[in-house]
């Protein structure tokens, strides 16, 4: 998974000696102590490096290992420990008793949420929003990237790019605040409508159009940022392809259709897979912030449901079960989507090998 991403060029990286002994001789062995003469790993006899014991390798590489430890430690505490903490989903957990002494109840909490209409409403909302975003958000960055790519004046292009990236760095609180100031009942648009004798907009509080609202917020915030990856892919296209196509009489649109879009295909498939893997995650902040304004009927998604049942109502085990279900389902989705990508001959997130 990792090495395909990162190893570039053909020369073996330092330290790759043992693994790549069949290739060109390593110029250097794995982090030999700088002061010591090259020990077993002299370039001429790579075979000697294979016999290095883990002790020798540790002595040679300890600074590298030590460097990773603080970060690894944080991940262990704040990522892996909570991962294990998911056992409370199978317990009748009480904070007063603690994880160790809480009673195991098997899949009871799972059967609870399966028969809970509120859970299904949250799931339905989440899937609806995901589906809506796939249709109405996903293509926007692609279109925007094509538009930006077609601008020949580099000054204009760079300026527009800086502007469209910007909202990505605003917090959701800020984005929703700005939307409220412009589109809210007391906002700018309503202000203008009222002056011209019309009734003000209600979109910020209307549950029926909520899905439109969250998607536009999403587009405003992240469509520009989404173009970055497509622009990068576009810049890899061999220009002589366009020239050859033009020589063969292909117009602008045909060139886009037959050269540009195929070039974007791997990226599109990759992002689609990632989005599908996140089908049950539509974001937390955006919804919790607007839940009061539009009501939970439209704004309750799985993440806010977990928050309300778990943190607010204190039903930790139940909420953890919902969270675990959501995580496992997402993992299964991403694996399945990746498989499908392989069937279509795309690379996907990771390769088969």
């Amino acid at each position, binding site marked *: 998974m990792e090495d395909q991403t990162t190893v570039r060029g053909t020369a073996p990286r330092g330290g790759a000696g043992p693994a790549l002994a069949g290739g060109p001789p390593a*110029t250097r062995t794995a982090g030999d102590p700088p002061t010591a003469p090259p020990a077993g790993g002299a370039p001429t006899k790579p075979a000697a490096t294979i016999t290095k014991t883990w002790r020798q390798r540790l002595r040679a590489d300890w600074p590298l290992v030590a460097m990773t430890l603080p970060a690894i430690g944080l991940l262990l505490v704040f990522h892996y420990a909570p991962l*294990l903490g998911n056992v409370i989903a199978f317990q009748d957990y009480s904070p007063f008793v603690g994880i160790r002494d809480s009673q195991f109840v098997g899949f009871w909490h799972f059967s609870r949420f399966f028969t809970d209409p509120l859970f299904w409403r949250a799931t339905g909302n989440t899937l609806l929003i995901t589906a809506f975003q796939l249709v109405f958000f996903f293509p926007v960055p692609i279109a925007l990237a094509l538009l930006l790519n077609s601008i020949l004046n580099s000054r204009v292009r760079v300026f527009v790019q800086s502007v469209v990236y910007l909202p990505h760095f605003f917090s959701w609180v800020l984005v929703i605040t700005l939307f409220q100031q412009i589109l809210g009942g007391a906002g700018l648009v309503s202000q203008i409508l009222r002056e011209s004798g019309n009734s003000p907009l209600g979109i910020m509080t209307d549950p029926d159009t909520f899905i439109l609202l969250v998607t536009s917020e999403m587009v405003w915030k992240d469509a520009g940022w989404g173009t970055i990856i497509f622009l990068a892919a576009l810049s890899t296209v061999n220009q002589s392809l366009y020239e050859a196509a033009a020589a063969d009489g292909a117009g602008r649109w045909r060139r886009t259709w037959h050269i540009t879009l195929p070039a974007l295909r791997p990226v599109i498939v990759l992002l689609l897979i990632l989005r599908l893997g996140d089908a049950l995650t539509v974001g937390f902040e955006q919804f919790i912030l607007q839940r009061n304004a539009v009501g939970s009927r439209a704004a309750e998604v799985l993440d806010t449901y977990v928050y309300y049942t778990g943190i607010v109502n204190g039903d930790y085990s139940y909420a953890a079960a919902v969270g675990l279900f959501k995580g496992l389902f997402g993992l299964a989705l991403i694996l399945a989507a990746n498989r499908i990508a392989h069937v279509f001959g795309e690379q996907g*997130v990771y390769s088969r090998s």
Partner: protein
Amino acid sequence: MTLVSETARRRLRSSRPERAPWEEPEGPLARIGKGLALTAIVLVILGPLYVVLLTSLSSQETITEAGGLVMVPDGLTLDAYRAVLGGGVITRSVLVSTGVTVVGTVISVGLSILCAYGLSRPGSFMHRPLLFTVLLTFLFGPGMIPTYLVVSGLGLVDSYWALILPSAIAAFNVVVLRSFFMSIPQELIDSARIDGAGEFRILASIVLPLSRAVTAVVALFYGVGYWNAFFNALLYIDDTRMWPLQLVLRTFVLDARDLPAGAGGIQQAVDSAPSLALRMAVVMIAVIPILLVYPFVQRHFTKGVIIGAVKG
């Protein structure tokens, strides 16, 4: 899997050539259409910021006259900012957010650089398991409830560390840095080693100076994350006096509620300045730091991010 090749990077660096000789010139309709589309996009993004900025700088009379948000400048004043920053919760939240952002960014960037460099040499001792530990965090999140229990179990509720430590390491940023470090020519590092430099020395004197752009981008990502931290604060900070700016923004601006008891300051502030201007001033205070840092880092985005990061 590398989506962006060496040639791509070279082309990103050099600006795109003007129209190729074989390319047909655009028709007037296409030019007008594109111009309109771009203008609309820029207006939709910058327009709200302009209106909010102007309102925050306006006096009560101007706001009343406009009936709300102000679109035409008239008698600009800094009163709202003076009131908002004259002590009380908002000032305090600005200080909290600034402190958390600075401390958090330093910790995150420092640890991420160390981690990325430690993982930048395939084949080194324990390289695969350590790298796997980092990459696995991409695939599966631990979930909100268990994380909450761990953080509160560590006694971090109502501690600024709760805003920093749980989100201190983002695997994505480590991968970005690592890819960049691995693209640094091996000969440079070898020659430093021959001169007797240890790993820490190589990192500090060779690798980091070459990695300024990517470090700046990663620092921006972390910094913006801390500045925007809302979720962690909502979960872990109960004490209103410890609220970061985003929570104040939600309560005071989005919900248009007055700040909870103990807020102080703001009541007097309301008397001396218009409340819409006050609220818009808080919005601007949340925006300004990003606007200040953004231009310096923005030009490195393509260069710094795409090089390493294109990965799931």
